[in-house]
């Protein structure tokens, strides 16, 4: 099932022609309408006329979160305010808020792109879609809302929070598709268990999750608890919000909407493209946005471009699921550690709950990392020996995965804080 098959399955050569046309006109517009870009280009002695191929993109300057902050609030808008019909702000996972705008056409484009992703994730006009993202400045809720409405699905704008009520709605309104963060989907599963509501009491079939990195193991956990097919989708407000890429039913990477975005993967240190297939930082250029075009935006999200075509028939290149952020990479004892690595290990170990936290302290000159892991109730009533065995197993597996030793502490179920949006996994107490 496709939403716009002529676009999603476009011949590669035709697509590249279209991308070049769109790139050139985007550059012509930002160069004449946005002083920031003109200054950036002029500083490098580049004009839009120097871009004659998609490869020339690499000659253009990057745009960073700091640039967005420096031009707060409207400095990077490429149209007058009277053409802007919507303003959103980044959810600010890290640092200060940044502002983005949409024209009427942008909103239409956005709706269509999300409609593609929902369709790829299995949603049709016959579905009842519950949006459990917070409605507000955050782009997630509105993006998915528009896309689902565009398809003709029945949309429930449940917003985030009040999990028992969410479950009640799911049950009473016969929700068939859940849209939320993956960590919230887990909380829903857990809460259902506590409320004594079995999966069979719900009509859920699909889950579309995004806004934070999650592992395949976590996917299995969610699918098991909620009885759904779960797909990952990706986007960020600086670029458009959700709608940049999403998984199809093959679930072998996220198809990028390449007729609207150019995606590069770079080495975040050397700032050069990584060899094909290798992991690096995603850099995204918008090709069709009117109000808030973005040239080479450094997302800090880590992913890779997957080789080869997808059996689903879409020709849009696929990116691997985001494994983390360059800025949530922890350096512990001099070694690069991503929370997602720890997550992967924990999911493989029987008896642990999918909730964890990494606490880092510094004793003298030494880093000390402790991983707090929730375990099922039974283990605490059992003998000490089993607990110790489990701690040992986790410690060994983590040491193997991370290349450094960390402490492991088992905690009772529900002792770690739950989030209704993006989960907080890391507590770094080091004063560097």
């Amino acid at each position: 099932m496709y939403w716009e098959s002529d676009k999603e399955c476009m011949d590669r050569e035709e697509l590249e022609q279209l991308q070049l046309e769109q790139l050139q006109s985007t550059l012509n517009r930002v160069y004449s309408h946005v002083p920031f870009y003109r200054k950036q280009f002029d500083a490098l002695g580049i004009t839009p006329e120097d871009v004659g191929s998609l490869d020339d993109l690499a000659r253009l300057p990057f745009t960073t979160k700091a640039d967005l902050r420096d031009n707060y609030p409207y400095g990077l808008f490429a149209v007058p305010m009277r053409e802007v019909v919507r303003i959103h702000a980044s959810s600010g996972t890290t640092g200060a808020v940044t502002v983005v705008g949409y024209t009427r056409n942008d909103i239409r484009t956005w709706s269509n792109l999300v409609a593609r992703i929902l369709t790829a994730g299995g949603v049709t006009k016959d579905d009842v879609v519950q949006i459990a993202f917070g409605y507000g400045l955050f782009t997630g809720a509105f993006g998915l809302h528009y896309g689902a409405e565009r398809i003709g699905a029945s949309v429930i704008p449940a917003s985030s929070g009040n999990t028992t009520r969410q479950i009640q709605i799911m049950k009473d309104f016969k929700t068939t598709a859940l849209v939320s963060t993956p960590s919230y989907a887990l909380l829903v599963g857990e809460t259902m268990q506590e409320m004594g509501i079995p999966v069979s009491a719900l009509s859920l079939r699909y889950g579309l999750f995004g806004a934070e990195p999650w592992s395949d193991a976590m996917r299995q956990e969610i699918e098991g608890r909620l009885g759904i097919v779960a797909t990952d989708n990706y986007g960020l407000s600086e670029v458009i919000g959700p709608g940049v890429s999403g998984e199809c039913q093959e679930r072998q990477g996220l198809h990028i909407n390449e007729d609207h975005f150019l995606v590069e993967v770079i080495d975040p240190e050397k700032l050069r493209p990584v060899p094909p297939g290798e992991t690096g930082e995603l850099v995204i250029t918008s090709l069709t946005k009117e109000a808030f075009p973005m040239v080479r935006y450094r997302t800090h999200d880590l992913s890779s471009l997957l080789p080869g075509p997808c059996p689903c028939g879409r020709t849009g290149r696929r990116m691997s699921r985001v494994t983390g952020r360059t800025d949530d990479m922890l350096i512990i004892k001099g070694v690069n550690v991503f929370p997602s690595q720890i997550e992967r290990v924990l999911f493989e170990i029987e008896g642990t709950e999918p909730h964890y936290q990494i606490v880092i302290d510094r004793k003298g000159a030494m880093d000390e990392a402790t991983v707090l892991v929730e375990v099922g109730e039974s283990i605490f009533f059992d003998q000490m020996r089993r607990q110790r065995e489990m701690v040992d197993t986790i410690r060994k597996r983590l040491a193997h995965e991370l290349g450094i030793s960390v402490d492991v502490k088992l905690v009772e179920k529900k002792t770690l804080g739950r989030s209704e949006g993006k989960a907080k996994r890391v507590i770094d107490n080091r004063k560097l």
Partner: protein
Amino acid sequence: MLRIKNLESGYGRLKVLKKVTMHIRAGEIVTIIGANGAGKTTLLRTVSGLIPARSGEILFDMKEIGTLPPEKIVFLGCSLVPEGRQLFAPLTVNENILLGAYPQYRKKRSDQVRDDLERVYGLFPRLKERERQLAGTLSGGEQQMLAIARALMARPKLIMMDEPSMGLAPLIIKDIFSIVTRLRGEGSTVLLIEQNAKAALGIADRGYVLETGRIIMQGTAEDLLSNREVQRAYLGRDLDAEGTM
């Protein structure tokens, strides 16, 4: 059908087109809108081979035509309906139309001419009525029809029209544009250049906005019609007066 990449051209030392990249798929009506002097006519003249491309590619049916003379380009199936019609005023309507069949004669396919003539007169019954009238005595609308009829005689796959609505009354413009739509219905592909952006976007599938030799926007006709910059600059809507602030 037509794929242009980084096309640059101009007159003497004046560079008019700056890295123009665009394409037309078979069966589409694509329009290029832009103000006077934006480079619209230069673009058509360059694709037709009337002025040389300085750099860039022009692929017609996957063949590079950037260095070919105009008649070869017509032979390949790419015809121009020039700005200001460019008819032979002292010749009759019929004679003007037959001049358009020149490629058929050159290709030794003069046997096709009779059928083609019939088809063209079928499209433009008004011209059939005035078959023997001198072209110079026709009304503006009829002259435009004649210019289109002449181009069709070469059996073009792609027909490029430069300001067909110029100087015509609104009712006649409607006629001309409905003919363009009909041509597409019969399998032609059309590149339409217009200052009358509203009419052009009304029948086009997609459009490009050319500004001082650069393409600054492109998209479906629907997208361009609802773009406020296009509305203000090319559709003559006064958004301030409408109190949209």
